[in-house]
Structure formats: structure tokens, C-alpha cells
């Protein structure tokens, strides 16, 4: 399980730099500062971390957080066996032992008492106490903790504690501007730039409606899906309806307006 190699990112993931975030991340990693990435869904947060792990040549352990997750799901637990019990490291413990980048995706989804276990790893102590096992793990020098969250969900219930927030340096991500997004679509799917630009345009129509019936605009990820479908030979309008409109809304008025935008764009 704790084989370092299996967590390595082998192939270079495609990541289009939006600003100087790569250099900034490298600086943060050099000093082993914990990092938080914020931004709407599907704008490239996870891809960025994957890319950085590849670039730095470090193993990456990703944990998708959910509200049923307990502290022991992160840290580890005893399992029952025929002869007694056996300790199993959780992903966070593994990362701290082998010196990986531990990426807690959508960390607000986890319950607040769960997120507290990362505190000792994120300050000067860089340790992880396993109270059940009676062990104190010194984090490996290569270990770094990264969390991501989407402020768009923000509700009273789902926010990080100040004490958690203030342990991280942060990157704010957003959907790239039209030109950059076109390049991303073209590179990801192999679609020609002209059609990709049209997809980006539709994406922007939906982003304009955020807060007016849409909780989130169309993400870059969905645009890539649409581009992939079109590249596969699907009729562009059908591909857009399938990948861009139907997933994001059940509101008939908005659906109809987006459908119209598709027809108006793909004349």
C-alpha cells in the first residue's frame, strides 16, 4: 500500500497556465507550506494539483471528501482479523509516511470535526498523532497538504473554520478567459479552434446567468466533454444540448434560452 511509486503521476497532464500559479506553487512547495485552491467546479483545480505533482515528481494521494467521512477514514483504523486486530493506515497517514502530496478534494464536504485532524500537520509541528495506536508520526520532509474547496456552495453549514482556513496559503481559480479556454478545449479534445470558440461562447452565456436561476455556470470540464463529443462526430447542437445544457439545469426557461443560444451560435 505504501509503495511510493504507485502514487506517482506518470504521464504529463495537460495544464494551461493562467498566470504565474505554477511558479507560486513551486515556491510554496519549496517551503512545504500547505496550499488551498479555491474556485468553481470544473475550472481545473484538481488538474492543476495533478500537474504540479508531476512537475515536482512527487507522489500524489487524492482523497475525495464527503459528509460521512470520519477522522479515522483519514488517519487509519484497526481492522478485525481472525487472530485479533490489525492497524491500517489511512490516506493521510500514508502520505505523511512516504512523503507525498496529500490532496483533500472538496474538503468542506467533510464534517468539521474531521477536518481538525489535519491541524497538527499544517503548522510548524508537521506531525500526525495516532492516538488509538499511540504513535506520533513525523511527516516525511517531502510531505505537503493541499485542500480544495468551492466557495460557490457556501452556505451557513458548509464553510471552513477560521482556524482551518488560516493554516493555508491559497490560490483562487476561475474559468479562464475566452481565448485561453478556446486553446484548452482545442488541446484537450483536438477540436478545431473555430468550433471551440463557439463552445466557449455558449459557456459564457450560461456563466452570465449565474445567480439568475443557475447556481453555477457551465464549467470548462463540461465544455471539454462537449468538444470531445463533437470531435467524435456528434452533431454540434446535439453535443451541446447533451453535455452543456441538460446536466446543469432542470429549469425549463433557462434550458430553452440556452438551447436558443446554441442554435444562434451554431447557425
Amino acid at each position: 500500500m505504501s509503495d511510493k511509486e504507485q502514487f506517482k503521476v506518470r504521464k504529463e497532464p495537460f495544464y494551461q497556465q493562467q498566470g504565474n500559479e505554477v511558479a507560486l506553487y513551486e515556491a510554496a512547495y519549496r517551503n512545504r507550506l500547505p496550499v488551498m485552491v479555491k474556485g468553481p467546479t470544473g475550472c481545473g483545480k484538481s488538474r492543476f494539483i495533478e500537474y504540479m505533482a508531476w512537475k515536482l515528481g512527487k507522489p500524489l494521494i487524492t482523497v475525495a471528501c464527503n459528509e460521512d467521512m470520519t477522522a479515522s477514514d483519514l488517519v487509519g483504523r484497526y481492522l478485525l482479523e481472525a487472530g485479533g486486530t490489525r492497524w491500517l493506515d489511512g490516506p493521510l497517514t500514508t502520505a505523511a509516511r512516504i512523503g507525498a502530496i496529500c490532496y483533500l478534494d472538496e474538503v468542506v464536504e467533510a464534517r468539521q470535526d474531521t477536518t481538525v485532524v489535519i491541524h497538527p500537520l499544517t503548522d510548524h509541528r508537521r506531525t500526525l498523532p495516532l492516538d488509538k495506536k499511540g504513535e506520533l508520526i513525523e511527516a516525511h520532509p517531502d510531505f505537503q497538504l493541499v485542500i480544495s474547496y468551492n466557495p460557490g456552495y457556501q452556505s451557513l453549514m458548509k464553510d471552513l473554520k477560521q482556524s482551518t482556513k488560516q493554516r493555508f496559503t491559497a490560490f483562487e481559480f476561475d474559468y479562464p478567459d475566452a481565448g485561453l479556454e478556446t486553446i484548452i478545449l482545442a488541446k484537450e479534445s483536438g477540436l478545431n479552434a473555430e468550433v471551440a470558440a463557439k463552445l466557449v461562447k455558449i459557456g459564457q452565456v450560461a456563466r452570465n446567468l449565474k445567480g439568475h436561476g443557475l447556481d453555477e455556470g457551465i464549467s470548462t470540464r463540461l465544455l471539454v466533454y462537449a468538444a470531445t463529443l463533437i470531435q467524435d462526430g456528434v452533431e454540434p447542437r446535439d453535443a451541446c444540448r447533451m453535455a452543456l445544457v441538460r446536466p446543469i439545469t432542470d429549469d425549463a426557461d433557462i434550458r430553452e434560452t440556452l438551447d436558443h443560444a446554441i442554435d444562434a451560435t451554431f447557425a
Partner: protein
Amino acid sequence: MTETAYEHPLMKAYWKQLNSGFPQVREVFEDCMVEALAVLSRDGVSAYLDAAGSIGRLGRGVEPILVFLEEWPSVAQTLGEEALPLVMQAIQAMQKSPNGKAIAPFLQTMAPVARRQHSLEQLRHYLDIALDLMGRTTGSIHGHHTTFPSPGLPEFFQQAPFLFDQLSMEGVRNWVEYGIRNYRTHPERQKEYFSLQSADSRAVLQRERHGVLFADAERKLDIYLRGLWQESEQLVPYSTAFDELRKPIPYYDRLGMRVPDVFDSHNDVTGIDRYRAVLAHMVAHRRWSGQIIADNYSPFQRMAVEFFEDCRVETLAMREYPGLRHIFLALHPFPKEDDCDPETTSCLRFRLAILSRALLDPEHPYRNKDIVEFARRFHDIMAQGESSTRDIADLALSFVARTRRQSDQLAKVHFDDTVIDYRDDNRHLWQYIEDSDDEEFFDDPDKQSSKKPAEAQSLPPRHYPEWDYNSQTYRPDWVSLYEALHPKGNAADIDRLLQKHAALAKRLKRMFDLLKPQDKVRIRYQEEGSELDLDVAIRSLIDFMGGANPDPRINMSHRTSGRNIAVSLVLDLSASLNEKVAGSEQTILELSQEAVSLLAWSIEHLGDPFAIGGFHSNTRHDVRFMHIKGYREHWSDEVKARLAAMQAGWSTRMGAAMRHAAHYLSAQKADKKLMLILTDGEPADVDVHDERLLIEDARRAVKELDQKGIFTFCINLDPKADEYVSDIFGHRYMVVDNIQRLPEKLPQLFMALTK
């Protein structure tokens, strides 16, 4: 005068067959026959003459036969000759009833109505509607020994062409149905309704119109503007139904974008897409058009500048969204190159329409070399970028100069195929240095602002719909409800009442203390609790097996926390409350006061937000809703004073009062919303003769409230209430037979409901 010099023998035979003695008929007979012979078959002509003859002999004067002779051939042409028996049957039915006077209007509008029917089947429907109207509105008035003709029928026939212009057959049927139902017993109102003069006649017409109604599309259009154009603008509809002569066209100014209230589909473009085209055009102007000084241009030049500028912004809009081209072209008229004769008619408008088509449509068929040249020059300019209003105005001026003709000054203007109805009137394009004499400038809002009317003292009425169970429709804005604070009386009276019930109050207080809040919350990690928490139990077991100290807190229990109920008590204050309760000196009103005081006092203890309102009504135009206690008010002397001044009068229009109380209750932030209605009789009002109507409306109101998440409960003091109260409230009611016990019952009931 009836003798002509020469008469064809055949004509003579026809005249004989007609067998009419009216000299006026003689005069037009030949002309009518010429037309009839041209369109009718031999049998048809014969039937035509027979029918005309019998209409002439109805004893209704010369008018009906004249109209018939003139109109029938064109009707027969559109609907076929088989329509005649149907029409004759209808005429006979009218003749047999006292409605003979309606025959002339019927025949008069026959031709325009027929043109809109297209089939015999449709005509049959039309006649059915008319005869149904006749049958149900012809009647006797109590005490008179004659039957009276239907007042609405002749009006209906007169309006029929307009109605069919605006409505589908279904819509006409609904419109007529509404008129019959509501004005059957009121001849004057009925006349007003069927002649389209009354307000609700127009409102119902509006509701039944075909096409995409603005009201239905408004949100989509808002989203459209915001999503595709990043604009947000007030959209204001104007009515297209009642301006026959001068059709209003879209425009925008500081107060918003004006668009028609309805769009039919046209050339395969759906109504909603036509709205979008209008908005796209206006937005394009806002985005790319500048202002130019109007004073320097002649009207012709201005018109040309407008056409060119319209095309420029549309071209830019189509660059943004290429799909718009398809919509614009479908809506843009396609004038034929040679349709306008420049010798006799002013063709400037027509030339500009052609040019506009050529500028937008890359596949235009025009060969006129000026058109082709200017289209090329236009595209050259546009190829360099966005161009500007100024540059394009120069191009427009040279177009006018190049193509000018003497005939442009002629009064006869060629209008066919030149109206581009999705374009606005371009008022934003022009800047006038000197105020013109145009009418619009007189009502400049800036200049009028000084004369603002003084602010009204009382609150304006609120309008609520009422459910009409006969047609299963809402009557729009039917009830006017006036709300006010209840006047104050003497608060000490209420204290005295409470004093009287001191013992009961004490008992109630004990019960309220027991009444626990009801939100269930799970408490985990309990050593002792009501249930085993499996997750924690397994974890502890593992700890135990692994030799570690197991956590003994493996149970969980439930706790209730936070009462979260908002209550609205609606009191019926109708006249019947003044009656004395059997076997007591007190009136129902006094007992209600006691009961409400106790309830209010108890709820104050519980701390739930609680409002009291009373209502009564005097016809649908005057429903009063009096606020006695607001949600945030405490059970204070002021509230007591209002309660003490409570008085009874008038009737019970329950539905409107419930909708109004719900308006405030639904704004409360509470998990549970409860509306208690305290009444002593069934819903009724002096202007409603159908006793089911208000019951059904109240039942409907209960359903609406249910959908808003409001739980309604009725406390009825009418011993005979069982007949109707369950129709309205389902199982959610209580009939208090012994009214004297109401003060005790009411708080108990409240507790039972909220436990």
C-alpha cells in the same frame, strides 16, 4: 325607377324566383346576381335565391335580405355552398325566439367571420356558440310576462370578426362562456361585456389570445437578455389588441424596452423567437448605435439612415450569433423588385426595404445596380470593423441622393412588404436640438414631474383572483381587498375577560408548560440513550478486541428543540356574529373575543409568532381586512384595545381573506405555518347568487395555501356546518356546537394541533 331599359330574360326569371317586393333590393339585384352567377353553381344560385326570398319575408325589413344578397356569394366561395342550410337554420332559430333583431348583425358580419373560419366544421362551431349564447341569455324577468331578447347577442355578432382575429375558436368559446356566466342576469353589463367595453371583457380576451403571451415569456426573455447579451432591462408590454389603425411598434427609452404583449408565429418563426429578434435588435442598437442630430436631415434622409443603421447593428449582432440571420431573414419582408411603380407611387420606402433585404441576405435576387452597388459598399465598410452610426449615415445619404426620384414626393406611398416588424422605431437614434411639434414631446416625463399627485392617505386595494368552479378558471383580479389597522377600543375590557377566565388560564398555562418543542435532533455519544448507534458501537467493539479502551458512549437519543411555528388567526367578522348564543346573554362576538384573548395570551407564553386579523366583505369590490395583531407585536395593551373594539357587520368572502392572510404568513420564516380560521357560517356575499361559488373558491384557496406550505384549520361555530365545511377544509376542521365553551376549546385545539 325599378324599371330598367332592357332586362335579360334570365334576370327576370331570377327576380321572379326571389319574389321580393322591396324596391331597394331591385336596385342592387342585378349586381348581386352577376357576382353570384360567377361563383355559385346552378343549384347554388337557386338555393341562394330561395334563401334570400325567405329572409325577405321574415318581416324584419329590407336590411337582412340586402345584406344576405350582398354577402352570401363571398361566404359561399370561402366555405362552400353546403354552408347555406346551416346558416338558414341559425336564422330560423333566431326568428323563432325574440332575437329577430340579431339577424341583421349576424348576416352583416357573416362574410368577415367566414373568411377566418376556413372550414364548415369551424362555422358550425361558431353557430353553436352563438345559439348557445342566445339560448342562455334570452329569458324572462321575474314579474314580467314577456320573454326578453338576448341583450348580448347582437353585440356579439358585431364583435365577431374582431374576436376571431384575436382568438381561436376555443378562445371565443371561453370568452363567450365567461360573459354568459357572469352577466346572464344583468342586461346592461352583458351588453357592455359583449361589446368589449367592460374591463374584464378585455381582460378575458387578453387571457385567451393565441400566440406567445408576453406574460408567459417574460422570464425567458429576461434570461435571454442576461445570458446572451449581458443586459438587464425592464421589459414593458404594450397591447396590440385594441389599436387597429396605428399599430404600435417596439421601442426603448430610459424606462425600459417596450414590446408587444403577444406574438404569433410567423413564417415558421415561433412567437418566442420573434420576441428574441425584437430584443436582439434593440440590444444591438444599444450596444453599437450612437446618436445623430436630427435637425440637419430631411424626413427621407432620416428614414434612409434608420434603414442603414438597422442593417449595420443587425450585421454586428449576427456576427456575434450567426443563428440570428435565419430568424431575421424569416421575419424580414421579401419585396419583389418590380412591385412598386415609380411613375405613380412614392417608392423610397420600398427601395429601402429592398436594400435592407439585400444588405442582410447574401443570396438576394436583386439586380438593380444601385442596390447591388450599395450592398457592396456597405459590406466593404463592415468588413473593416464595426463602422459607426456616423459613417453609415453618410452612406445612407449618398444612397438617397443617388436614387432620388421625383415621384418620392407623391402622397401615395408603397407600403406593402416594407414593414419590418421586429425593428424598433429608432427614437433613440435622433437628437433634436429644437423641440419639434411632435406630440410625444408634450408628455416628456421630466416636465411633468412637478405635478405629481399627492400621496394617497390609505393603502391602495390589493386584488385577488377568485376561483370559478363552473369554468375551472380564475377570475383575474376579481376581489378588491382593503387592509387597515383595526380601530382601538378599551384594553381594560379584555383584561376583565381574562380575569373572568383566570381559573381556565391557570389550567392552560400548566398544559402549555408541558407542550414541548418538536424539532427532533439526534444526540450521539450517549452512555444511555434510546437507540444503539451502530457506527460507534462497532468502533468500540474493535477497540475492545484490539485491547484498547473502548468508548462506552455507544447510544444515541433524540431531543426536540426549537418550536418554529408561525400562526395566523383569521376572524370572520360578519353580521351574524351579533346574534346571541342560545341559552346565554353573550353574543358570539363577545365569546369570540374571550376565546381569542385566551388564545393570544397562551401563544404569547409559547413565544410563537402570531397574528390576528379580522375580515368582512360587502361585495367583491369592498373586502375589508383589519389587522388586530401583527407577528412581531406582543400581547400588549394596544393589541387588546384593538381586540376590544371588534365589531361585526356585512358578509363573509372567505377566499380573499385567506389569500390575503396567507400573503403575510408565507413571508414568515418558520418551519410550520398554521392558519386558523374562526367563522360562524358558510362563505357568502351579497353579490353572489350561486351559493356554491364562494365555497368552491374557499376550497381552492385552501389548496393554494397547501401548496405554499400553510396548514389551514377551521373552527366553525355553525351547528349546520357539516354540510359544507368538509368540502372546504377536508378533515381539518372542528365544529364547536356548544359555543359557550369556545374560550376553553380554542387554546386546547391550538395545543393539540401543534403538539
